[in-house]
């Protein structure tokens, strides 16, 4: 197995996540797509750690996981509060601020 396949896979996952953020309507799903992007980055980091023969990429993946967890806490709190108000988590309905 050449490691570059993993790089391609992670690029693909990252792209799927990015497209998902742009096209999906539900804030929770948008957020899950962001998490997919972060995990794609983790795969890239671990693969490069393998290619470079250094451990720092693997350690960075841990940092990313912790940050992602913290982001989930904050993000779900914000999305919950807007869901309780509007009874929907659709990002299209949040349209009071414009122009």
């Amino acid at each position: 197995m050449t490691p570059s396949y993993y790089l391609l896979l992670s690029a693909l996952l990252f792209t799927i996540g990015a497209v998902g953020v742009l096209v999906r309507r539900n804030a929770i799903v948008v957020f899950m797509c962001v998490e997919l992007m972060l995990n794609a980055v983790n795969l890239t980091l671990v693969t490069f750690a393998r290619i470079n023969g250094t451990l720092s990429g693997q350690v960075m993946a841990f940092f990313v996981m912790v940050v992602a967890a913290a982001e989930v806490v904050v993000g779900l709190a914000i999305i919950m509060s807007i869901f309780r108000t509007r009874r929907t988590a659709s990002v299209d309905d949040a349209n009071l601020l414009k122009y």
Partner: protein
Amino acid sequence: MSVISSVLLLAQEPPAPPKVEAPPLDAVWPILIVLGAACVGVLFEAFLPRHQRWPFQVVLTLLALAGAGVLLATYISDAPAAGELAMYGTLAVDRPALFLWGTLLALSLGAVLMIADRSVEPGGAFVASAAIRPGTVQDRAQVAATGMQTEVFPLTLFALGGMMIFCAANDLLTMFIALEVLSLPLYLMCGLARRRRLLSQEAAVKYFLLGAFASAFFLYGIALLYGYSGSVQLADIAASAGGSDRSDTLLFAGMGLLVVGLLFKASVGPFHTWTPDVYQGAPTPVTAFMAACTKVAAFGGILRVLQVAFESTNWEWRGVLWGVAIVSMVIGAILGLTQTDVKRMIAYSSVAHAGFLLVGSIALTDKGLSGTLFYLLAYGFTTLATFGVISLVRDSSGEATHLSQWAGLAKRSPLVAGVFTFLLLALAGIPLTSGFVGKFVVFEAAIADGMAPLVVVALVASAVAAFFYLRVIVLMYFSEPAAEGPTVTVPGAFTTAAITLGVLVTLLLGIAPAFALDWAAGGVFAIR
């Protein structure tokens, strides 16, 4: 035999663990004070009864800022001129970093005063309890109640600590963690307005989703750069950009993604889409904090990344950032013209200013660095005071931010209209204000570095932007006041102090900028 050898192995001393020296802390005390006070603030929230929290938090936060400022001043007096690396090389405490720390501490002092103010809006600009659903009976009760969600104070300190780490980070991983530490509290603070809570919550959701999206790009950029150079230290990336056996695609894709993340935070150019919505929806003191401090921190990071890590490849990427700067200035100036809300107008003005700052940042000379640092200082104080004044003009439903409500304000309150006029002139860059000096030094550095066409575009953009500032001035002075117009609240000591601080610095840097220019030119990035 094998039994004997294993017994011998057991009898041996276990290998001594490698000795890890504790890093010297004298360079990073300001950060430790700020983050430590934030942790103490969280404990206050947990253990103090509700009515005692506000005074304790305010005193703690102001003491932390003052203490960090004093420690910073004592450190600067005998700091090595070339800067030093702290915390095992993850932080580069050099002159630009120290300048930015001082700027951030002073700006957040003003912002904290505005956050703590309870005279403009009875009870403060923050919701009494964020868990109350907007539009319910409890929500109407909390508007009249005097309590506020005092978690904003520790959140502010955490964000400030993240900003201070961000503009001193010497490797990309530290920079990413600092980016999140500064962003996550800001997402929450955006959603805590006492009035117009739907707008506030919507601003928080938008800022959060777009911010998380942008930090994913930032992180992917880090991963690609790690693949390119095998390290995330800025100096190592700079070294391997000179010659590496890896493909240049990794370098430039990584750099592009990284810079997109940074430009998003700095609300530059085509990555500004969150700015108007979030500036409008967030509570005004938080908007002031974001507009002043986040801009400083983000441009601190941009300057460091461009000058330390990517200086040697600037022929390849500079053209792209030319384009971004032009787009940013044009978007800010043109869309600012069409705005009908004061806060949105200032938001587009900040997009235009981000373009001017980027012009200074891509002038990769010492003058470009010091000019951009000075511009950040000047712009931060002006915009802080601007939002302070905006929070004073109110009607029965809260802040009156629609421009039509500002008509004839000079007849109601000549003082407030006069101060606001001065601040708008500073944003437009009229002489005798700090805005003029800031633009002058930045454009001078850009011309000296061979970017005359870009400076011409910048001058045209600032002329167009001056039009919409002047439009507000004309509206305040030469229109008849509306019959049901807003009133101008007489601010209490805190907001008055914050506005006075901003106005005085704006005036001082406009009349006698030499000392601040000397500070900004005190040294360059420590590249190691």
